[in-house]
């Protein structure tokens, strides 16, 4: 799966947690999940679990702690998938 596909999948994963879906239309790798997309910080845990299910991988807590932007998530996922 290439970076573009992982990015698109990440946007889909985030969709239920974003109050204003329009924010995802213009999302880039630099989009901050909490600050820009206004995702409730407690729900990041659920986003990580969803990623584990969708990509069939395990993301340990240290890796999860690094995720701030969509790009951070894509990087972690790429590393795990490869």
């Amino acid at each position: 799966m290439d970076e573009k596909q992982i990015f698109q999948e990440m946007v889909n994963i985030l969709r239920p947690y974003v109050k204003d879906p329009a924010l995802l239309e213009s999302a880039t790798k630099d989009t901050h999940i909490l600050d820009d997309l206004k995702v409730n910080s407690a729900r990041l845990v659920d986003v990580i679990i969803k990623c584990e299910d969708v990509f069939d991988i395990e993301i340990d807590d240290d890796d999860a702690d690094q995720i701030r932007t969509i790009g951070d998530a894509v990087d972690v996922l790429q590393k795990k998938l490869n």
Partner: protein
Amino acid sequence: MKNRVVITGMGVVAPNGHGLHDFEQALREGRSGIRFFPRLEELKFSCQIGGMPENFDEIRTRYFDHEKLMSLNDNIGYMSVSAVDAWRDAGFAFSDDNNGQVDWETGAILGCGIGGMDTIAERVVPMVNEGKTRRMGSRIVEQVMNSGTSARVGGLLALGNQVTSNSAACSTGTEAIVDAMWRIRTGLAKRMLAGGSEGASPYIWAGFDSMRVIARKFNDQPERGSRPMSASANGFVPGAGAGVLVLEDLETALNRGARIYAEILGGYVNCGGQRNGGSMTAPNPEGVQRCIRGALADADTAPDEIDAINGHLTATFADPSEIRNWSQALKRDPQDFPYVNSTKSMIGHCLGAAGAIESVAVVLQLHGGFLHPSINCEDVHPEIEAYGDKIPHTVMEFPELKIIAKSCFGFGDVNSCLVFKKWEG
């Protein structure tokens, strides 16, 4: 000087109706919300009938987005929908984003009896036992904490006054109203949402089934199963749902031109101490009578001013004793006894939601000038036969109806009683 407290909004999710219009229609028609549930039969429950709000999964999607829906188990869902309905009914807007405005003058006391048992049974216990704790996600605590209902509603409506949840078993809903009344009376809040809720789950109902206190003889005739005050009553029928009332300081309500349904003249809560006939599961008669008299004194209302009683009346052995307690507390003999009905005859016993849903029923009756039928007691229990004429079996138009007293009693020998008066301006 205590502030007068009025009711300016209501919301209800009941087994026989969602929303004030549907619920009032059901009450007037004597429409039962009790149904047979095959799942209870599969699980070998003795009682396979219950009262569960219908079409609720569809209803809740009309109120909340996907993100919120993931955090709403049935208990919190019933309460949230009822609270939003009550808030709108009181004339306020419900919006997800109100520009960061917090309503510091409004609070909520919204309780439940057992609460998020379905979440515990279906998610927490199996996942923890399978070593999957880290996969449970972020939504468990908010759904199982005792204040889960009030916490959710506080956020939905941006409430800034006291937001808490009480729990007093089957007395929860009415206790919440009494406590909220006091907060307004003493000037600590201008407005309070008060109510109760209970989820619909075999895991909640199982403990009552195993106590043999719920109806097991009417599985093939569910609508006849809930039989308060009947000779053939055979235990209560478990129910679920929520009721919320918006209580408001009279002056505040008048200043904003609010529609006022009724005034809460007074209320009282106490405990029988589990002595002298009282126990974990049965009320001490002296405690019940003191509670009723306490409510009347607080309301500055004479016993002969009570037009009707909406009883606790669950369809157990305790019904005749409750009627006797009312009679003694009010010093009114059968001939002179107020009319009496049981909303549970149509919705079953909604546990922590009971007092709240039934208080909504009381206020609708006062506002609409009618008494709803108490169904399934054509065969009045022999011990209270003398009071038979005071039980409406069909809807009774009653334009001069002014004051209804409402009681609830719960495990732990706890009691609550409220006195409501029709608002006539």
